[in-house]
């Protein structure tokens, strides 16, 4: 840990986290990217950014979009993975006992982004309890600070700090009360991509795949979307990747390999959406 990663806030030394660096690129669906950037933009020095929420099925690309938006405005990114047992201090500042028996205060990725003026992605925010969300309430309105009871300090957000939370629309979620709900706006919905966009997403992730497999998997995904099934581009990537491995292993018919892979990756009930 270098001194560069320690800041002093109200007389307390706080150790900061490292930013995330991911090799991902946003493909297609430029409109939702534009909406996210609009939510973050300010039109005046006295204006405040909004705290958008990205909604969509698992694997539709919410985190990728958030990361790409942050990179589009040239900011560092810190991702915080929320879980059912995320506590307020996990979100803010955690005390750690070091070898000497002294307490060291470690900032979460979120607080680090606040201090550095970066972008914080609160991933799977719907899994977090109301108590954890409550600790972020002042950050999400015009006060723009958090209070760490553990370290006994108030941390103010840098003017360039931006926040986005992603949420799955599945059932494994806590209830978010209205006072938090009203602060996490706008709610940008990521719908399933159109055929060409989805194919481009597959091609981006599987540049070594041949055209026929990409087309076959894309057609499957589009049929599944039309039937409002849960499978997303992520499932398509996993499916195609496994099929390609099987083909490399023993050759054979590409479509048959994809259908066989789908039984392992997605389950038998996906087979009905495959073409001949």
């Amino acid at each position, binding site marked *: 840990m270098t001194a560069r990663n320690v800041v002093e806030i109200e007389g307390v030394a706080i150790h900061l986290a490292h930013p995330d660096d991911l090799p991902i690129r946003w493909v297609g669906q430029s409109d939702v990217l534009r*909406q996210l950037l609009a939510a973050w933009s300010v039109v005046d020095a006295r204006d405040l950014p909004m705290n958008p929420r990205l909604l969509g099925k698992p694997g539709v690309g919410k985190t990728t979009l958030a990361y790409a938006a942050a990179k589009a405005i040239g900011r560092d990114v810190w991702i915080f993975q929320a879980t059912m047992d995320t506590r307020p201090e996990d979100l803010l500042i955690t*005390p750690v006992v070091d070898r000497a028996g002294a307490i060291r205060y470690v900032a979460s990725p979120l607080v680090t982004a606040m201090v550095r003026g970066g972008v914080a992605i609160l991933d799977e925010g719907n899994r977090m309890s109301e108590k954890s969300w409550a600790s972020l309430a002042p950050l999400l309105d015009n006060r723009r600070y958090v209070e760490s009871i553990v370290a006994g300090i108030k941390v103010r957000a840098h003017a360039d700090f931006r926040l986005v939370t992603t949420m799955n629309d599945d059932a494994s979620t806590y209830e978010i009360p209205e006072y938090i*709900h*009203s602060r996490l*706006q*706008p709610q940008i919905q990521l719908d399933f991509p159109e055929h060409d966009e989805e194919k481009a997403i597959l091609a981006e992730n599987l540049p070594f795949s041949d055209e026929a497999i990409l087309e076959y998997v894309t057609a499957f995904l589009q049929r599944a979307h039309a039937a409002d099934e849960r499978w997303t581009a992520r499932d398509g990537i996993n499916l195609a990747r496994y099929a390609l491995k099987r083909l490399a292993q023993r050759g054979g018919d590409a479509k048959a390999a994809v259908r066989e892979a789908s039984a392992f990756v997605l389950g038998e009930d996906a087979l009905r959406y495959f073409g001949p």
Partner: protein
Amino acid sequence: MFAVVADGIHLLPVVHDRLEAADAVRAAFEALEPEAVAVEVPSSLGKTWLRAVERLPAISVLLYETAASETIYLPIHPADAMVEAARGAIERGLPLACADLDVDGYADWRDPVPDAYALFRLGPLTVWDAFRRHPRPEDPHDAPREASMAFHARRLREEGASRVLVVCGMHHVEGIGRALGAELAEPLTPPVRRNVRLVNLHPESVGEVLGEVPFYAAAYEAIRAGLGVPEASIPAAPGRTYGPFRILSGGRGDDPERVEHAVRRAAGGRSPCDRLRLQWGLVRETERALASSAPDERVEPWQRRNLARFARNLAAGGGGLVCDLYDLLAAARACVTENFAWELHRLATAWPWQQESAVDLPTARIRAEEMFDGVRRIRLTRRRREAKGRRPESLLRRRRRDESFPGEWLRDFDGESVCSYPPEDVIVEAFGEYLRRRGKTVLREEASRVVPFTTSVLDGIDVRETIRHWSEHRIWVRESGRVPGEVGAVVVVFDDARDGEERYPFAMTWLGEHAQESDMAFYATAPEQAVVGPGICRVTYGGFLLSYPPGRLREVWTDADYAFAETRPERLLLAALDYSLERVVVHVAPRPPRSVFHQIAARLDRKILHLPIGTVSPGTLRRIRVLHVLSGRERRDVAKEYIW
């Protein structure tokens, strides 16, 4: 106001298809009082185009084929500068020249003009000045077209008009100005274009083809026609009424009078039109429409504020001053709800003066790039195409179904029995279970405590608290609470307004259909006021009671034991205390019950646990609050297709 004035000829620079430019034309008429008018419309289309202008406010579409066999279409609506100039001339009995040259293959230029809203704020000259600093590349057709417009303007002057008003696009002003200073020959253009057709536009296609948002264009027309704010208030709810029934179908059957009233209220009789005000008027009229058909869709003040902020940011991000319909819909969907966006789109694209058939013209439906005139399908090319991929309706994921013919859905009410839609029963049941769990958690947390260690470790060491107080060198221990009893009945009150009986006239007591389903008593909106499918009605709960196990609830709404209750929510709470087999009754409502209810509960050895409704996720409440009442069990098979 005029960019060029030469020998009595006044050039007014405008942009097409924008009500601000049409307003500028009206102002030019007032200021100049011209004696003749020339517009940038090809002379060979003039006769047909003028016929369309005279049909206003009914909207027509002019179609013609180019030499390359492309069909070009041009919708004619009131909020266009050329149309306004023509109407101004016709109303004043002035000579009018369609002065443009008819050319094929003219590039579909996107002029780098500022947002048209700047015309309203700054006037045409300032906007034109900004436009001149960023000229677009020359098109070989420009010079002959500008010469043609100059020739016609000069001819009007020679025919005795002392003041000629020429209304033309920003890009052509300088070219026409130059041409006016030169020798001009009569332009060589065919007098009439062959294959020019005029069709009446089907009402459902208005939103597809108009260059301006129909709602704004209609507001412009209302102000132009001197229609003030309506005094009489007609129902704001969308849909079509048949006796006691109101059908809320997909996009058809909206009452034109309702749309006209909404337009007039939004326009407010103010001239010139302020697009920002109109936009806000559209939002408020959407709220009004939704509130009257679905109380669960009430828009909160914070949603309104967020919508305004997000719409502003989207506009600014795209280099605009006011956002377009696409971005307004995106903001409505993101800051309010999908249903709100749907209703907004329906109102924004309605045209109150359009008939499904016309005596003077054939009627055509136009969808995207294709026209169907009842006989054949024609591929179309727009004259001024909108940006690809920005079709507002693409934002609306769920399509709503329509009746095949008016009144179709009413045939499926047999009046024999009503039942619920099982997937909704499951959701409500799960919600009841969630509230029971949550109630226990709240009670447990209320009774638990963390204290410094003295003589007993109680229920274990609290590590977090110990570390927080590290400097004190003490250990902290936790004592878990003891819940005073299990949770039984659950009462949820969404709306406890005193006029609940008027707003929620539908009160019922339903028994669970199987062992896993609770009995339920509820009050809700009238089903016949929102028919959304064949024998399918959408109602909104005002409040309900869930009581488990099933099969025990007698008719709650007429039970004399509960006569003490002053309101329906109180009657539900009394019934909950009466029927609950467990000690704790959960009460979720905007306000806690009167203190006397706690005394009643204590006498029955019950405890009321009140949870403010604000602590429940608004998204969950919206999902829970809507119920579909089906006329007979056989409707359950098709209900999914009609539910929104």
